[in-house]
């Protein structure tokens, strides 16, 4: 019983900030108080009309669409290569593909900044997109590889034995069977890219910055609950995406969580 209470307290600690942000977003005054004296949607209005947030939202859309759109085929090809082809040193390639996960954000960020300056690409969105593709790639490779590993090669052999050419087998059998893995990969790519902050801070300007960077600047300069409203919208959007993904993709399968009977 005490152990169950302990788990509940710890889970409370994990969810407390989310709850507080949601409550704060409806606060009627600029100075937060608890319990709030009334409800108000003015900070939502503020968040949705603040020009810099609008500009950053458009940038986020562009950067995430471009980087997810590029990372998905690149990562899928790499996952297929690793899982299906007799490469030398497969473990080394695997480690290399996952390596962006372990590079500290400030090191990658400053590195990309210096590189961009050397190439005359400061303030160019290309650098932002390239950085996002690199950071998102491990998630895509992982998700697709899980899917490839679960794919029954007999199905492809059956198609081939019935006369389908390799290209046709790939488009009509392999790719459709990989669909759950590809969706999971896309989901991860979008979530990681939309939330990426540290590297983006280094390689973006006021004109090209994406939402997390704009939010950071806002928090540093203003204390009103506009950020709480925007955060609540972020949390709600994430929740809807994850809920839908779980509904249609069975997330537990994506995360490979084995259920003990």
């Amino acid at each position, binding site marked *: 019983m005490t152990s169950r209470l*302990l788990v509940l307290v*710890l*889970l409370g*600690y*994990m969810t*407390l900030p*989310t709850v*507080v942000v949601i409550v*704060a977003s409806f606060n009627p005054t600029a100075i*937060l108080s*608890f319990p709030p004296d009334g409800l108000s949607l003015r900070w939502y209005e503020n968040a949705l009309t603040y020009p810099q947030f609008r500009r950053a939202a458009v940038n986020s859309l562009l950067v995430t669409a471009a980087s997810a759109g590029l990372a998905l*085929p690149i*990562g899928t*090809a*790499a996952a*297929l*290569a690793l899982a*299906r*082809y*007799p*490469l030398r040193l497969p473990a080394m390639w695997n480690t290399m*593909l996952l*390596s*962006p996960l*372990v590079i*500290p*954000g*400030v*090191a*990658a960020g*400053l*590195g*990309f*900044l*210096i*590189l961009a*300056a050397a190439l005359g690409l400061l303030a160019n969105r290309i650098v932002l997109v390239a950085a996002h593709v*690199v950071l998102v*790639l491990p998630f895509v490779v992982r998700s697709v590889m899980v899917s490839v590993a679960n794919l029954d*090669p*007999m199905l*492809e*052999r059956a198609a081939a034995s019935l006369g389908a050419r390799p290209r046709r087998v790939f488009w009509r059998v392999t790719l459709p069977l990989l669909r759950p893995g590809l969706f999971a990969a896309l989901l991860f790519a979008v979530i990681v890219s939309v*939330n990426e*902050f*540290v590297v983006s801070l*280094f390689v973006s300007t006021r004109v090209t910055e994406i939402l997390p960077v704009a*939010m*950071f600047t806002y*928090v*540093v300069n203003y204390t009103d609950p506009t*950020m*709480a409203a925007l*955060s609540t919208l972020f*949390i709600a959007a*994430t929740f809807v995406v994850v809920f839908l993904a779980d509904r249609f993709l069975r997330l*537990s399968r994506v*995360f490979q969580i084995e*259920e*003990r009977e």
Partner: protein
Amino acid sequence: MPEAPARESVARRSPALGYALLAPALAMLAVLALALGALLQFSVREFIPGSIRTGGLTADNFRGVLASHYLRYIWDTIVLSALTTVFTLAASYPIAYALARTPSARARSLLLILTLAPFFTGAIVRTYAWMLVLGNSFVQWPVKLLFEPRGVLIGLVHFSMPTMILILAAAISHIDPRYERAAASLGARPWRVFWRVTLPLSAPGVVSGSLVVFAWTFSAFPTPELLGGGRVKMIANVVKDLALDAFNWPGSAAFAALALLVTLALLVVTGRILGRHAA
């Protein structure tokens, strides 16, 4: 004896096509390698104030890292990372244990969603949320928390818990529950079962989780930046100050290189430990 069908189909594929499929991903990784190479190169170049060009080779940037006012931040980084590791471990173990051992599939998926939720909400939203909690507008805390090391610590532990929980839960789920039952049936009290059976058997998870959390915290940025409010600084905050506020890229690069090397060294050690355990 017939060969496994998977092997057969792999054997028939040409490695050349495999490398061709791998090439675009390797090209992207090459960009990252170039960026990190540029960083390391800048870390040994002379800083020319007012310019993003650099001078000749120098060790001054690393000498700067060891200057007394910066040494303090490095010390703070080490202390905060160590404390974060210890508290994260203690706070994560019960949840990981519940996640690995609960018989109800519903409870497990609820625990999993609550564990993963902070992963999905992003660093800025999460850290901003802690600013609200730690500030005195909702609760009057008996001690000052925001812009103090203890507030930063609270945020860092929260940040590290999902990672630690997932690593620990995987390790605990591999322990055969019959060991625990055997110890209990021989008369050991629950605490004794935990200390003498469960905890030692989950040691690989504890060690690798701790190393990963320490390595990540060592280069943490948004949490100390916002919850520290400029009063508490870790290495990554110094990197940002020097690079984006002082435009001293070479000086900043030395700190970033330090964070990079420490993180990579720790993760290599983790890999070694896990590899030895697997073997």
